[in-house]
């Protein structure tokens, strides 16, 4: 810590900002990061405990299936373990995890739909899987996901991160390495295209 009033002011500002951001999860994330220096396995265990349920919800929201969602969560953490930068100080762990989870989920959903269409089966999940019965407003939500699936890649990714990953625009901007204005314009276009696609698909209550 430097000396003088400016340094003190900076330190105070940093403290204030960090307190603003410091939800329990941000503090826990910071603890995990420091732990990684001495005990990476324990650090990953902390990260897993911290994020596995939110990630499960997000994957399950996209896939409507608990078993598939569990597999996605496993894959996400395995990738995290293979990611060399994961415990770097400036690495946005939560945002990255959600990004990987949403990409894997939407890809699996798309491949599964394609497989089902090829098999000429009706749309429910394949047998042996574990469907989510209690998805409220499920059909409408499925239609929106169908539409999101066919958006251009750049729009789809920001849509998933914002509405299925609960990331702020700034977090999306950091995680994807794009400007804030670009996040806004991609979301604006994505939402507008969603309206059009849903109209074409003939969705009611529009």
């Amino acid at each position, binding site marked *: 810590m430097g000396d003088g009033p400016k340094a003190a002011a900076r330190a105070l500002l940093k403290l204030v900002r960090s307190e603003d951001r410091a939800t329990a999860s941000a503090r826990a994330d910071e603890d995990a990061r420091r732990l990684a220096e001495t005990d990476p396995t324990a650090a990953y265990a902390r990260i*897993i405990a911290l994020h*596995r349920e939110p990630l499960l919800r997000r994957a399950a*929201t996209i896939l409507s299936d608990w078993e598939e969602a*569990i597999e996605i969560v496993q894959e996400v953490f395995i990738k995290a*373990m*293979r990611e060399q930068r994961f415990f770097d100080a400036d690495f946005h762990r939560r945002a990255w995890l959600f990004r990987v989870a949403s990409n894997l989920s939407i890809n699996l959903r798309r491949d599964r739909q394609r497989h089902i269409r090829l098999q000429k089966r009706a749309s429910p999940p394949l047998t042996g899987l574990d469907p989510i019965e209690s998805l409220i407003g499920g059909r409408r939500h499925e239609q929106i996901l169908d539409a*999101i699936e066919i958006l251009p890649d750049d729009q789809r990714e920001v*849509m998933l991160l914002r509405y299925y990953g609960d990331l702020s625009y700034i977090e999306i901007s950091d995680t994807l390495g794009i400007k804030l204005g670009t996040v806004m314009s991609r979301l604006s276009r994505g939402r507008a295209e969603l309206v059009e696609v849903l109209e074409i698909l003939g969705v009611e209550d529009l």
Partner: protein
Amino acid sequence: MNCVDLRDRVVPWEDGELGPSEALLVERHLDGCASCRAFADRLASTRPAPPPLAVPADVLARLARATDVDLLAARAREPEHRAMPRLFPGRRLNVPLGALLLLLLAAGSVGWGLSAWWRPDRAAPSLAGAEGGTIPVEQFDEAAYEPPATPNGDPAEP
């Protein structure tokens, strides 16, 4: 704020990501502009809103077992499954080596088959005239043509 500017800002406004002064401008415009209000309504009705999910206890238990750190670390240490080596890696032309070999093999088989079938001495299929010669299609007079008098209508052997 005009309608064009509004359309760029209404999604961030709805997402709560606009600063207070810009948000106020958006709201004022919406108050006074029916068509932009209709646009904002359509956006709101198609807002992706994942329904709330209650995770059953047994799913949580399975999740905990499936995400045991040692289990996942062991899988992370496994060599990543290598897909068929790609001949031209990249988005545009991503041809698996195996697929290319298969294609070459198929092309080779077809080529071999063709060479076995084609014989220089074999006459090309044609409309045979009475003497066994060939008649170009455009000169063929259907009205004058008399089919060969074989019981089953097969062309006479040359």
